[in-house]
C-alpha cells in the first residue's frame, strides 16, 4: 500500500540560492499525525507548504496516495487539505459561521447545508453554535479563534490536515486545552495530519511520529517513545531546554542519564 504522503528527495532553494530543504525523503502513513519539529528557520513551514503547493520545490517530488501532487487540480487538491496557521487567518468581515462554511460556499453548497455543517463542526471544536455562530472574529479570544480556524479547516471533510504552529500564540493552559481537544478530534476523524511546531511537549502529546528538521535536513523520524530515548545531540538539546526549570528546582527527580 502506498503512503498517504510521500516526499522523495525534496529540495527547495530560494532565489538567492539559500537551501531551505535539503533532500527530504519521508513517508506519512494514512490516518497518522506526523509532527515536524525544529528550530525557527529549519525549513518546517516550507516543507508543510510544499504539500498544498503554496511552495514549489526546486527538485524532488511529493506523492499523495501514490500520485504526484502536480497531477491533481490545484483547487481540488487544496480543498482536500485543511489548513490551520498560528495567525488563524479568519476573515474579519464574516461571521464565525460563514468563516467555517466558506469552502462549502465556494463549492456551491446550499446555505442550509453550510449552516448545518458549520454548527456541527463548531460543536466538535468545543464552541456552542448558539452563542458563537453569529459572532465576528474580533469578538473571540485567541483560543476561540483557533477553534474556529480548526472547524473551518475540517469543513469540506478533507483527507489531510496541514497545521503550522496552530497553538503557538496561546497561553500554556489554553494551549493544553486545545491540544487535548485536537487529539480527541483526530482520534475520531482519522485524518492524515502534518503539524509543525517547535514545542517538544506538543510533539510528544500529539504525534504518532516526530520528524526533526535542522537547517533544511531531516535529522530523525521517530515514534515519540524512540524520540525520548534518542541520544541524538539535537534531541538532547531539546530535552535540556525543555526541562531546564524542572532540573533546576528538583534535580533529584530528573531522569537518570540526562545531563543538563
Amino acid at each position, binding site marked *: 500500500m502506498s503512503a498517504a504522503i510521500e516526499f522523495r528527495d525534496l529540495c527547495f532553494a530560494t532565489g538567492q540560492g539559500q537551501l531551505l530543504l535539503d533532500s527530504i525523503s519521508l513517508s506519512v502513513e494514512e490516518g497518522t499525525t506526523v509532527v515536524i519539529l525544529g528550530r525557527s528557520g529549519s525549513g518546517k513551514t516550507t516543507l508543510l507548504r510544499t504539500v498544498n503547493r503554496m511552495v514549489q520545490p526546486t527538485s524532488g517530488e511529493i506523492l499523495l496516495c501514490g500520485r504526484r501532487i502536480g497531477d491533481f487540480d490545484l483547487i481540488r487538491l487544496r480543498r482536500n487539505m485543511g489548513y490551520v496557521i498560528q495567525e488563524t487567518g*479568519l476573515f*474579519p468581515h464574516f461571521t464565525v459561521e460563514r468563516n467555517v462554511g466558506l*469552502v462549502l460556499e*465556494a463549492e456551491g453548497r446550499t446555505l442550509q447545508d453550510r449552516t448545518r455543517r458549520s454548527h456541527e463542526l463548531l460543536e466538535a471544536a468545543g464552541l456552542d453554535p448558539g452563542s458563537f455562530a453569529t459572532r465576528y472574529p474580533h469578538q473571540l479570544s485567541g483560543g476561540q479563534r483557533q477553534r474556529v480556524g480548526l472547524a473551518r479547516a475540517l469543513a469540506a471533510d478533507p483527507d489531510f490536515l496541514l497545521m503550522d504552529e496552530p497553538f503557538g500564540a496561546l497561553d500554556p493552559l489554553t494551549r493544553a486545552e486545545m491540544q487535548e481537544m485536537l487529539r480527541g478530534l483526530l482520534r475520531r476523524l482519522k485524518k492524515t495530519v502534518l503539524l509543525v511546531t517547535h514545542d517538544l511537549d506538543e510533539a510528544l502529546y500529539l504525534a504518532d511520529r516526530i520528524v526533526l528538521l535542522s537547517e533544511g535536513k531531516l535529522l530523525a523520524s521517530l515514534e515519540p517513545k524512540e524520540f525520548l530515548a534518542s541520544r541524538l545531540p539535537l534531541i538532547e538539546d531539546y530535552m535540556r531546554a525543555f526541562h531546564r526549570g524542572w532540573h533546576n528546582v528538583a534535580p533529584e527527580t530528573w531522569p537518570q542519564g540526562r545531563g543538563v
Partner: protein
Amino acid sequence: MNAGFFSQYGGEIATLTIEHLWLTGAAMAFATAIAVPTGVWLVHSPRWAEPVIGLANILQTIPSLAMFGFLLPLPWLGERAARIAIVALSAYALLPILRNTYAGIRSIDHSIIEVARAMGLTDGQRLFKVELPLAAPFILAGLRTATVTAIGIATIAAAVGAGGLGELIFRGVASVDNRLVLAGAIPAALLALAADAALGLLERWFKVPAS
C-alpha cells in the same frame, strides 16, 4: 435673493442640479469601472504600479479648463459637451480610486490572503469574497475624495457648454450678478457636502473591526 428670484430661477436651478449630478455620477461610474480593475491588476503586477499610478498622477495635474479645451477638438467626443465633461471628470477621478484600490488590497493581512489561497478559493472567489470586501473602505474613501473634487470641477464644464450648476456661475460672473453666482455655487457646495456625508457613512459601514 428673494421669492421673486426663486420663482424665476427655481426650476432652472433644479434642472441644472440634476444635470450636475448626472455629469458627476456618470463620471464616477466610468472612473470606478476603469480604476478598480486596474488597481486589482496592479496588485498582481506590482512592477506596473509605479508607471500606471504615475500616469494617473499626471492626468490630475492638468488644469481643468485646459483639459476641457484639449478634448474639445476630438472626434465623437467633441460633438457633445457632456461627453467631454464626463471623460475629463473621469480622468481626474482615476488617481484617488486607483491608488486606494491598490493600497487597500495590499494592506490586507497577509495571513488572510494565505488562508484564502490554501483553502482552495479560486482567484475570482478570493477577489470578490475576500479582497474587494476588505479593501472596500479604502476604495470608498478614494471614491469619496474623487466625487467631492469632481462636483467642484464639474462647475467648470459649463465653459464648454456641458451644463450643470457652473452655467449659473458663469452667467452670474458675465452679468456681474452675485445672486446667480450663489445660485450655482451654493447647490454645488451642498451637493459636495451631501456626497461626502453619504459616502462617509458607506465607508464606515464597510469598515471591519480589527481582530
